[in-house]
């Protein structure tokens, strides 16, 4: 099926498909979210439920050679989350295996 027959006319239509589905959201500041998308708007503000946030904390070790930084990952979970659109980089359906 081509895009037009899908009724996909604009990027937001793709996001619409993911409504009430689990999505992967990449945010600025090395943060990632997975959660169920409940609502969005033109600013890409999102409302997610059952969210798990993954925060990458890059620690530059003193004296370590360039590019050898340790990455710590912090995770937290939230039942319901409002994501402000200006932080959103990417919204995608989670990869299916």
């Amino acid at each position: 099926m081509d895009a037009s027959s899908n009724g996909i006319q604009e990027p937001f239509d793709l996001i619409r498909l993911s409504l009430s589905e689990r999505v992967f959201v990449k945010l600025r500041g090395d943060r990632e979210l997975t959660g169920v998308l409940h609502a969005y708007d033109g600013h890409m503000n999102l409302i997610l439920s059952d969210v798990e946030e993954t925060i990458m904390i890059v620690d530059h070790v003193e004296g370590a050679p360039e590019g050898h930084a340790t990455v710590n990952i912090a995770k937290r979970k939230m039942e319901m989350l409002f994501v402000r659109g200006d932080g959103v980089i990417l919204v995608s359906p989670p990869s299916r295996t």
Partner: protein
Amino acid sequence: MSFFGFEQSNDLENEKRKFLERGLSGANQEDVAVYTWGEESYDGLGEALQEGGDELNDETFGATGDIGKDFDFSGTALPEHEQPTPSHAAHLHAEPPQRQLSQTPQKAQTPSHVEFSHSSQLDAIWGNKSPFSVLPRSNGSNRVHDNLATQPSKYASTVAQASPVNRPPSLNLGPDLHQGVHTLEEIEREMRAAAQAQHRQQQSQLAEQLAPQSQQQAQLQLQQQMLQQQHTIQVHGTHGLLQSPSRTQVQRPPTVGSAGAAAVGIQHAAATPPPRMHPHSQSPRFHQQQQQHQIHLLQLQQQQQQRQLLELQEQRERHERQQLLELQEQLKLEELERQQRQLRMQQQQIASANELLHNQLLQQRGISPSVSDRGRRGGVGRQSPAIMNPPIPIEVPFAQNMQYLPQNIQMQQRLLAEMAQAEFLSTMQGPGISERDAREARELQEMLRVEAMRKIMEAERMEEKRKRKLDKIAHMSRYNDLMTQSDKDFITRIQVSQLVTQDPYADDFYAQVYGAILRSRMGIATSEDRVLRFGSGGGVGLGLGQKIPAGRRQSALQRMEAQVERIVSNARLREKEKASLNSLQGALGRTSGRSYKAAPRQLLQVDASNASTSPTTSHATAAHISKQDVSVDGEGAAREAAKMGREALATATDGLVRKDPLTHRESLVILEQLYDLVLDIEQRRRDQPPPEEVEAFEEWTIQCESLIDQLFEKLKVSVPLETSNPHPFVSLITPIKGKKILPRVARLFDNTRMQILLTLIVACFSQLDVVQSAPRLDTLEETQEIKDLETQTQAFLSSVVQSILPVIGRAQMRLVTGLFGILLESNAVAIARTRPGIALLTLFLSRVEILRHAAQSGSDVEEPPTAEEMQSWQMMYNLLFDLLRPQLHLLFPSVRLSLLAGVSFTSIPNADVIDQPVWQFLSTLALHANEEQQQALVTGLREIVLENVASATKGYTDGEESRRLRLANVNIFLHALGLDASQINL
């Protein structure tokens, strides 16, 4: 010269008085006058003033000795002095020769004496009005001359300087005098000459007297007197005496008789020709004076230079003085004392300045510095330096203090008040009668005082508080009434205009639906939408409506509503008016464009008809996905038709057009379309026209029907089962929103369609995600996947099963048996181990039981099950029972879990909850079971039942809740068998 004004006012009167006191009679008394004048009445001004003037006089006069008429004016102020003139006229005649002859004052003495007596007589006649009323000063000048006489060579210039200055105040020539033969000027000259002569006499007398006296004293006097403005006459007299014979001879030969008197004036004229010089006075001597001019030219130039320097100096001094005066004015609060002090200071300054001048002059003349020093000392010495000097430094800080005064005053007042209070209190305490009484009284008063203080403090605090409050209010009310009512209305209009939409219900959808749910829950039957509709199709959603308890907010809300309504109606009214051209009548030049539509310009001008970017797309504007689809349908109709034909053909030929199952994305896309359709249909159902409007109603019905057809078709329910695995419909209900749409769809579909749907579900039951992945739920792990699966299962049970429940509830025996058979065709055991499967089986079994019960009781069942149907059902049941019988205990999730985990099923957490559906299923199973089957059930489940009861009764459970639930579960099953948990004895 510039100081003339200063002195006259003060000194003239004084001196006149003194002169009169002294009497006109004697020049002898002059000595006395000198001293008094020098010490008491002398204010130091005269000295300074004369010095300044002297310089200029020196220049103007020079050696010429010619007095210009420009000096006349100064004397006119005192008309009294006219009188003596005639008397002196004769005396003047004698003067010139005298000058020529006399080198020293002593020589000139004799003739002047003679004339003096004469003049004194005249004075007696004229009384006070003699020009000598200002005489005291003349003494000074006399002395000067005396003094200078000792140094004749340098004296001439000095005298010349001093003389014109002195003259003006003393010589006051009134116009009355000129009535005589002489011209005014001549008379004046005569007058002057007379005065001169007189004073010369006096002077000479003085000189005689003083001569034996010590040189020092004479010098001192001289210094003082030189600075006084005394008569020119005297100066001239001495001048004449002191002048070198050669000079005087050159100058004065023609000055004989009356004309000779003019010599003095002419001297002036030669040096600096006065502007007001009369031609006739000038003419006779002019040529002679030309010579003089040339002689004195060099001298004059020198003098001019000097004068310029002096003027500069003087200016500076004046400036300083001015500044001082300004300072004085600033300190207006000063009292007389200070004024006096200042005056003195000023005087001193002037004096000192003059001293400087004097010094210079003296130096020029070669006078020894000692003399000038002395003079200065004399001037300064009269006022103590302590008085003189400090004023400035003292006064300046005071002036600074003055600026702080207002604040200080407040402080002082407060302090005073406090002090007064303290005093008052202390006096209140007063002297005690006895000591004890006093002490008591004091204590009492102390208490009172404390009390009073406390009250005062409190009052102050309150006051403070009140003040702060007022301040705050004032602060807040700064912007009160900044906006007029019309401004506020204007803003409200803007806000409301943003709220008005074409479809108020859809735009307020969630609030509306939520409100409807709330209302139905609260039992308030209101089918009305909480929407404010306007005639032109617009409207404003009003949200939930008044659920808020009465109070301020509610009234505010009501007010807002009312206001909105008012504004909208007004706007509509205006719109209507606008529409009709009549409103423009008489509105020439007053028609505003569209000012009331103050909505901001939209950033994005998107055509509303084909754009629905937001997920809250209003169904009124028809989501484009469904639209698009329609159009696609239209476009690719041929293709679709061909495909469908092939499919039909395939079915006909007993073949299948096998298709790939719908991908996840495809199903999502279809689901979105489905949602659009559902929303559209729901909206249409809300917009149902009243049945009275037959046409509209019919049209509406047809539209709805077509939409529902579309919906049904899109659900792919009627697609052959074998088209794909999983079936497209199963794919559609795989996403959670697919499951959730079913109840909404179910309301729209009629029973037939729902039966088809049910059949499809049952037929494809094993394909369902929730069934297929159900075994994975038998785990104690808590992964995201499990959780999602759990959610899906819950969604299936709550949505799908709930939507098919009414269908099964209405299903006939035949259908149930048929579905049951279909279900058993697939892997029944596996299905029975899933929650959806258990639920479905339970539904069927209970429905059959109800049907059977109804048939037995002979109640009004539409289609009582036939014996045939019952038989087939029994067959089905037996089949199921036989399938389940070997592993009855595995139906329980807790048991499966315990097997997996290797622990007792009773210790599986939450076992009672997850086992409950199974107990219910078993109870329904037991209802249908015959004796043998029941026995089998009991034996099969005996262990589990016993274990559960034992754990429950012996209190191995987590709590009372769990224990009760466990017993209830067991009892559900046992009751079906006619037993009870309590009968079980352990």
